[in-house]
Structures are given as structure tokens and as C-alpha cells.
């Protein structure tokens, strides 16, 4: 019965995603510098489209896949959110394990949609990439793409000098 309900929820979510594309998906990203390295950080808003919300609250897991590419350097990460309906708790996890468990939906969503500063490379390794496009993209796994109406979210950043990168 539970499996059937979950299948129904997934089916409905896919249909809704096809009919009503996600609104207000917005990505903000920035490169940051430390004395040794260049980091990349990003924040998504609007990731919990109505279809994604139904899918999540049915007890499924939503995964965000982050990729940043600058020159020949590329870093990726994933971050998942799961709703444990029985305990009414949201769990956010990355590749290392659970990073947050909370009943506060807003806090869980913020944590899920934030890509914490991640090392892209050293200044030496990235020196040839300056003035070229730094691309940051976030996506759902292919089987969940319909939850955003098959929209792709990516952003191009351009820094011409090290001084232009905030710390």
C-alpha cells in the first residue's frame, strides 16, 4: 500500500512537473579567495517547486547535483534532502553523511539549497583560467528532472584578476 501510494505520488509529481514548470528557480554563486586557494559557493532558491514538494513530502529523497567548472578544473558535489514523515523530520545529507536533521522546513531547505564554499583549486592551478567563464550548474538527477519542468539552472561568472574575487 505504501509503495503504491509512493508510486502514485511520483506519477502525479511527474505529471504536474510536465504541465506546470517550476517557477522562480534562481541561482546565485560566487568565487571566493583565501591566501592559498580559490573556492566556489552557490545558493539556489525556488528548488522546491510544487511538484518537488509533493514528491519530497511523500517520503522521497531529492538530490541536488552541483558542478563548477573553470578552465580545466572542475568540482562537483551533491546534497540530498529526505522527509521522514513518521518523525516529521527533514534530513539533509552530503557525500560525507547527514549534515542536518530538523523539523524546521525552511532551515532544512536553506541547508539543502546551499553549496558551501568548496575548493576549486590553488591560484597557481587556476591562473590560466582568469578572464574565462566560470560555470556553476545545479541539477536534479535525470529521473527527477520533471520536478523542475526539465529546466536547467546554470550561471556564468567572470573574474579578470585575483583582486576581483572577494574573500
Amino acid at each position, binding site marked *: 500500500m505504501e509503495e503504491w501510494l509512493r508510486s502514485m505520488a511520483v506519477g502525479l509529481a511527474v505529471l504536474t512537473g510536465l504541465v506546470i514548470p517550476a517557477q522562480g528557480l534562481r541561482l546565485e554563486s560566487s568565487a571566493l579567495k583565501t591566501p592559498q586557494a580559490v573556492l566556489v559557493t552557490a545558493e539556489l532558491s525556488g528548488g522546491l517547486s510544487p511538484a518537488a514538494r509533493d514528491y519530497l513530502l511523500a517520503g522521497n529523497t531529492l538530490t541536488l547535483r552541483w558542478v563548477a567548472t573553470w578552465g580545466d578544473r572542475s568540482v562537483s558535489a551533491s546534497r540530498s534532502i529526505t522527509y521522514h514523515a513518521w518523525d516529521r523530520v527533514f534530513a539533509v545529507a552530503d557525500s560525507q553523511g547527514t549534515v542536518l536533521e530538523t523539523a524546521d522546513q525552511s532551515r532544512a531547505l536553506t541547508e539543502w539549497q546551499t553549496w558551501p564554499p568548496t575548493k576549486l583549486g590553488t591560484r597557481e592551478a587556476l591562473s590560466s583560467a582568469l578572464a574565462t567563464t566560470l560555470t556553476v550548474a545545479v541539477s536534479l538527477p535525470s529521473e527527477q528532472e520533471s520536478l523542475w519542468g526539465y529546466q536547467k539552472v546554470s550561471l556564468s561568472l*567572470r573574474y579578470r584578476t585575483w583582486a576581483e574575487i*572577494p*574573500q
Partner: protein
Amino acid sequence: MKYFLVLAVLTAGSALLPAQSGDSPQIAYRILMNYIQEQERHAGDSKAAAGVLYGLGAVVGAGALGLWYLGDDLSKSSAGTALDPDVKLWTTVGLGAGGAVLLGTGFLVRNAKPTDYRLRFSDVLQATDAETQNLLAAASLWALADEAKGKRLTSAWTGILTPLVTTAAMIALNLGTNKPWTDNLVAVNSSQVFGIIGGVAQLYKPSDEEYLYLKYQAALGNTVP
């Protein structure tokens, strides 16, 4: 000059912009850099906006021409009588003026020189000291917000006051020609309704640049209205 005045005040110890050590996050600079990147990404949007304005202007202008040349025939076929000549004239004038304003605005938007944001904020971008860079960025955020607020209010009041001016002119014309003062007031303001709606909306909705400064204040822990 404005930036330097603000910077001088801020460095003198304003509570709004506490001094930061060399290693602390450059909050203001991060927000400003994101703003610059965003503006560069949307640099081509003005062409689309101009296209929309041209389209609207053409539709409103076509409405004016249609009313002038076909209005009587259409009125006769639907209501059996020709249009009141005065109403026809002033509605045509109202629509024609609105169409001309939209086309003119579209032309200005289409041909506006694109802003080089990196040049505009070159003092910030080229600062080598992190603390100075952040203070300059904070000053730039304040200046951006102040400038955007000025433009927003000017645009809002222009939208709201223009129909008042045309209304006053129409009343004066009516009284000067011994007609009832209310004659053709609606007709001459046919295309002003969007200006009023847009103007009132602009009065209450802060611009993106103003939001950025509020975001910066919030990041500093200051009370945001």
C-alpha cells in the same frame, strides 16, 4: 566624489560599516561583485525590453489611427451612430500620445549606451587592500541604492503626475471654450492608466539595488525596515 565622501564618513567609524580585519569576509564586495556579474549577464535584455516597448507602442498607435479613420464606420455598424467628434479627437490624441511615448522610450532603451560596470566600479575592483576594497564596495552599494531610489521615485511621480497635467490642461481648454469642465477627461487620458498603475506600484516597491543595500545591512546584523 560621492563615493569618497561616503568612504570618508564610513572610515571615520560609522556604526553601519564596522571596520573589518584583513581576513574577514568581504560581505559588501561579495554583494557588489554578484551585482556586477548579474548586470553583465543581462546586458542584452534591454533589446528585448525595447522590443516589448516598440510592440506596445505600435499597438497603441495603431489603436489611435484605427479610431481616427475607422471609428465612425465601426460605431455606425455597431451602435447606428457616428462617434462624438470631440470624444473621437481627444481619445485619438490620448492614444497617439501614449503610443508615441512608448515608441520613444523603446528607442531610448534600444540605443542607450551599455554601462561598463567594471569601469564604473574600477576603484573597487582594483583596490589591493581587502579592507579598503570592502569599504569602497559598501560605499558603492549605498550610492547604487540611493541613485536607484531617486530614479524610481522620479519615474513613479512622472507616471502619476502626467495624467494630472493632461487633465488640468483639458479642464482649462474646456473652460476656455465654454464646455463642461469634465468633457473628454477620460478620452485624453486613454493611455495613461498604465502610467498611473506603474507609478503607484513603483512608489511602494524598492528596486533591486535598494534590496541589495538592505541585504548588506541585514548581513551586518543591522535592523532592516
